[in-house]
């Protein structure tokens, strides 16, 4: 069983290092801002007023707690195991990203800053940031790779409707990693009035820990909900992993339950063996990216390689440092799900349960199918359904050929 070798509580880890991962590899110019942020978020988490305000927003605006939906018809394809979906897709704006965006936007007010910037891949974090900024009266600028703007057009429009400025990023691979580079450049220039609202559990300390702190509500709710529903903890928790914020959010509450297996599903793209993938743990090497030491897709000289995935939100060549560490100590397992398997799970959930998942989350569903088959009818698999798939209908239409005459019957 995973995790039994590790005796100290895993939930107590707050960085800056997770084993040999994490840290701060950033320009000196940003150190002061990171120190300020570190102090501010720690204060906030122990400030009853801040936490009450966040809790109120969760209940009255985001729609928390998100429900658990059992998926019995889907489960028939997953060895008959009980499949329980944590419905982060039902949050306002349609994904887990709002949990973190709301927390950091409140923190921005607390720090006396007036402007937030963000990077986005699928657009979900950008939409969440634009939403929180609109609600709280902050200026918002979102950096998005040109390639991603094309494949997630709907979210570009949503961000603009919400009053955010969306800036296309045309450097490098024109995807999430380049958007993050551009946001960092903005931050170092405007740090005095600007907070960089990082969406993933990555970046320099304290971002990985802070983002986890704002996402861990997912696992805290789910743990209670599964206990109430099933009378015991799940055997396996599945979540998709790009940078890894939804995964660390649901894993965290179970870290010190050694009987619960934690499985992170990375984007396998065309297959890890083809080199065209985004599976940083399964197919990467130790390196530094965006301010932290972690597993990175890089070549023999340390240059970051382009990642590939049908899912824009997982198309990132690094992974949060806490995931790298959980992999190293064997507490969580990470494995790739290729595009085809993810799209098969995507279609299956649509037709068996009437839920269109985000393609990101479909990777977790594909993992759940495998885990369910392994466990059989006595097993319980909890899946983080991290987002809804409205933004992905174009991609799905093209993938399945649904816009052709007579298709989809």
């Amino acid at each position, binding site marked *: 069983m995973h995790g039994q070798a590790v005796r100290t509580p895993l939930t107590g880890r707050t960085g800056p290092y997770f084993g040999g991962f994490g*840290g*701060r*590899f*950033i*320009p*000196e*110019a*940003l*150190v*002061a*801002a990171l120190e300020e942020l570190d102090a501010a978020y720690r204060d906030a988490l122990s400030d009853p007023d801040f936490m009450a305000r966040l809790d109120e927003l969760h209940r009255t605006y985001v729609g928390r707690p998100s429900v658990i939906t059992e998926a019995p018809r889907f489960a028939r394809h997953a060895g008959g195991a009980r499949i329980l979906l944590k419905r982060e897709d039902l949050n306002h704006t349609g994904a887990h990203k709002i949990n973190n965006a709301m927390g950091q936007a409140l923190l921005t007010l607390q720090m006396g800053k007036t402007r937030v910037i963000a990077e986005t891949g699928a657009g979900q974090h950008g939409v969440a940031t634009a939403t929180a900024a609109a609600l709280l009266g902050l200026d918002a600028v979102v950096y998005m790779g040109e390639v991603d703007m094309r494949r997630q057009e709907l979210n570009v429009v949503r961000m603009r409707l919400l009053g955010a400025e969306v800036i296309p990023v045309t*450097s*490098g691979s024109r995807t999430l*990693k*380049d958007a*993050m*580079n551009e946001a*960092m*450049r903005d931050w*170092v*220039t*405007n*740090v*005095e009035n600007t907070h960089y609202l990082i969406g993933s559990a990555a970046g320099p300390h304290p971002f990985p820990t802070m983002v986890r702190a704002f996402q861990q509500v997912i696992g805290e709710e789910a743990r209670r909900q599964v206990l109430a529903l099933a009378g015991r903890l799940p055997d396996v928790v599945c979540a998709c992993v790009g940078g890894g914020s939804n995964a660390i959010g649901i894993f965290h509450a179970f870290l010190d339950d050694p009987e619960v297996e934690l499985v992170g599903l990375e984007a396998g793209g065309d297959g890890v063996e083809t080199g065209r993938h985004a599976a940083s743990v399964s197919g990467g*090497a*130790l*390196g*530094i*990216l*965006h*301010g932290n*030491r972690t597993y*990175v897709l*890089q070549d*023999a*000289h*340390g*240059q*970051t390689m382009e990642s590939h995935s049908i899912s824009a939100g997982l198309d990132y060549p690094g992974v949060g440092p806490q995931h790298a560490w959980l992999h190293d100590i064997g507490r969580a397992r990470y494995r790739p799900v290729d595009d085809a398997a993810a799209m098969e799970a995507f279609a299956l959930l649509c037709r068996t349960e009437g839920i269109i998942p985000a393609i990101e989350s479909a990777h977790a569903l594909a993992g759940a199918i495998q885990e369910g088959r392994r466990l059989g009818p006595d097993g319980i698999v909890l899946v983080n359904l991290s987002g809804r798939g409205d933004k992905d209908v174009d991609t799905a239409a093209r993938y399945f050929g649904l816009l052709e005459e007579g298709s989809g019957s």
Partner: protein
Amino acid sequence: MSARATIEQARREGRAALIGYLPVGFPDVATSVAAMRAMVAGGVDVVEVGLPYSDPLMDGPLIQRATEAALAGGVTPADGLTAVREVAAPALVMTYWTLVDRYGVARFAADLAAAGGAGAITPDLIPDEAAAWHAAADDHGLDRVHLVAPTSTPERLTLAARSSRGFLYAASLMGVTGERDVVSTTAKDLVARAKEVTDLPVCVGLGVGTGTQAAEVAAFADGVIVGSAFVRALMDAPDPASGVAAVEAVARELAAGVRKPSGVEA
């Protein structure tokens, strides 16, 4: 000669040192090395050999374009060591840390020393994360240049100064690399604050591109660091040979600038 000795020699001559940056491999390795040599011929005292990196989050659009082109041409860190070997001046490698991390810190220090390099400037390696580099640099007598910024507290200025050898790099404004119309007003203040905590030479980078600006900075700093103006000279040239000549001309203008500091020294 070490970078510090060269900068102090300039000071004895009553001027600031001129430090020039170019990324290796742009437009190709041979031209970039020729341009670095031309920089020295034109009056650059210390050369910064930049190693192109795929995610240069501290660089503005101009250097990004140059380093992207260099990477497309297949440049590697080993080409940087070749450049170090061939420039006839103290040379420091300027690199994002992940490249050294991948190369191997000890091996990098050994190979850099063997190539005759003076040391390295590490813009995204703060002293807090630099234990392995400090040890390796010490083993090979290499300079280790850290940066300070306008937002650095007195404690962080002290930490950076204590952690540095060769000189201290004052990143004079909040932002990325690239020329600016006016020299940042924060530069002079930052240098003064740094001078309070260290005897190391303090050199100013970010935003300096003309002889006039060099003269302005030379009035209060021990060295003037210029990058984008050299890169632009190469980029705007119709062919490699005229690019190298343009780099030398830029160096001459800047070298004249550091020899006639403008303004009154505080």
